């Protein structure tokens, strides 16, 4: 395969990967943050201890985290069909990707929020802050660098997962690697895809780290 064929192929596949990963990451970040905040608030000793809610959600998150992505991909096919009308292609892949990322984000957010010093939370409470104010004005802003870092880690994982989704017809760089590299023995294409993934991951990591340090005032 020549460069002028390979280039558009890789470029197209990279865009597909981003199309799968970015919306999934954004939705997962929002839902995962909400879930993580609920975990922090309801855990014993939290601002709103709710043992039953906490234990239930904690178990759900643990199960979600321990399911291998490839299994999740298959398990979620009915849900994916329901939401996107199909179970094949980049758009369809966003459903399992989002679902895989939510518990991951929830764990990271829960950890980040619990790392906010208790004294600061106490100061806010003594100023009369409501629970919602404590979350939105104190916990989340104070945890921002850790949250940005967590988002980066999640994005990198999702790029990896998306390659797996690609392998079963999701499109993107993983799909190219399988179709050309594995099925047609075009080792060059395989290597090029791997390099493209590497560059993508590096770029995301670099950007995320940079934003996290730039905005951290500690």
């Amino acid at each position, binding site marked *: 395969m020549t460069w002028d064929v390979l280039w558009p192929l890789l470029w197209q596949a990279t865009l597909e990967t981003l199309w799968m990963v970015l919306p999934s990451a954004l939705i997962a970040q929002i839902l995962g943050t909400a879930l993580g905040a609920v975990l922090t608030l309801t855990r014993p000793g939290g601002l709103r201890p709710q043992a039953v809610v906490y234990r239930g959600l904690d178990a759900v998150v643990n199960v979600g985290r321990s399911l291998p992505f490839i299994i999740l991909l298959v398990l979620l096919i009915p849900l994916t069909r329901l939401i996107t009308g199909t179970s094949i292609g980049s758009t369809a892949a966003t459903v399992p990707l989002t679902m895989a990322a939510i518990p991951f984000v929830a764990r990271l957010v829960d950890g980040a929020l619990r790392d906010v*010093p208790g004294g600061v939370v106490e100061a806010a409470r*003594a100023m009369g802050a409501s629970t919602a104010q404590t979350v939105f*004005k104190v916990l989340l802003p104070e945890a921002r660098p850790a949250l940005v870092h967590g988002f980066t880690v999640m994005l990198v994982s999702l790029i990896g997962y998306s390659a797996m989704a690609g392998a079963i017809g999701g499109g993107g760089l993983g799909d190219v690697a399988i179709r050309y590299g594995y099925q047609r023995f075009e080792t060059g294409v395989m290597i090029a895809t791997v390099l493209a993934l590497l560059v993508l991951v590096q770029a995301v990591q670099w950007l995320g780290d940079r934003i996290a340090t730039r905005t951290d*005032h500690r």
Partner: protein
Amino acid sequence: MSTAPPPPALEFSRVTKTYPGQPQAALQDLTLRIPRGSRTGIIGRSGAGKSTLVRLISGLETPDLGHIQVQGQPLTPATLKQLQARTGLVFQHFNLLAQRSVLHNVTLPLELRGTPKVLRERRARELLQLVGLEALAGRYPAQLSGGQKQRVGIARALVTDPDLLLADEATSALDPETSAGLLTLLTELQRERDLTLILVTHQLEVIRAATTHVAVLDQGRLVEAGETASVLRQPQSAVTRALLDAHRPEHPLLAGETLHHLTLPDLGAATLDRLARQRARIVRAEAHALGVDVWLTAPDHVPAAELGRTGLGGTGLSGIETPRLIPEVSA
């Protein structure tokens, strides 16, 4: 017609608080009135219940028994928000928000109350000026010294214009000079703004330097309360006397000198510690009572370090003999 006197700034009536799972109450049957416009010190050893007192006033904990009145109003879930607005809190470890600028740390209490941005920033700048930090409004807490951080803490506590200011060990994390500067600032602010200031501390110097009234806590109980001058002059409880002893400046005992007609509290714990290090011997009171000016020999001589165990500390002594040959070791 006579008008009723204004209510005390703060009144605890038979308040008991036990933390879950703790065998002992953190505060036990506490009754205490803190006069309006006073600078009241709360002193006691570690674990005495001082911080618990502050947490109850600021609504971070609720009492198991008894009630609390702030400015004549009972502290209940219904009045909590309103009373919290009238109470400012200053913390030992400042508790500033690391990701907010100095200015926005000070605006936070107003932001939580929904004060418009322009108003709250103007007000925060006024307070930063009051504590001498207007030039540092744009910095972040990590870029400040400990003393500066605490000034931000004070500005933040006062931004809602409270009439009660609570400071829990506000100067304990700072060096003596910075600490003295902050106490002066707090005292001035209390006078100018007609605040009631509550200074929680385990340091007697803080009580001496900055308070008009003092309450002494021990193991969750109030052991003594009154005007600072009279409590310090005539402590009524053993706990207060022990606190005074521990903070008495060292007696300038010279090597080779012999002192007569001293009581142990005259000397204080610091001096006794030094005497113990120097292996000083004290002479029993009975010997002196006989009028004999002869120092007894061992075993009647008791090393200063043993005083507490022999019970001599309570009965007084006739003299202390410091050894001639051991030079003063400077710390």
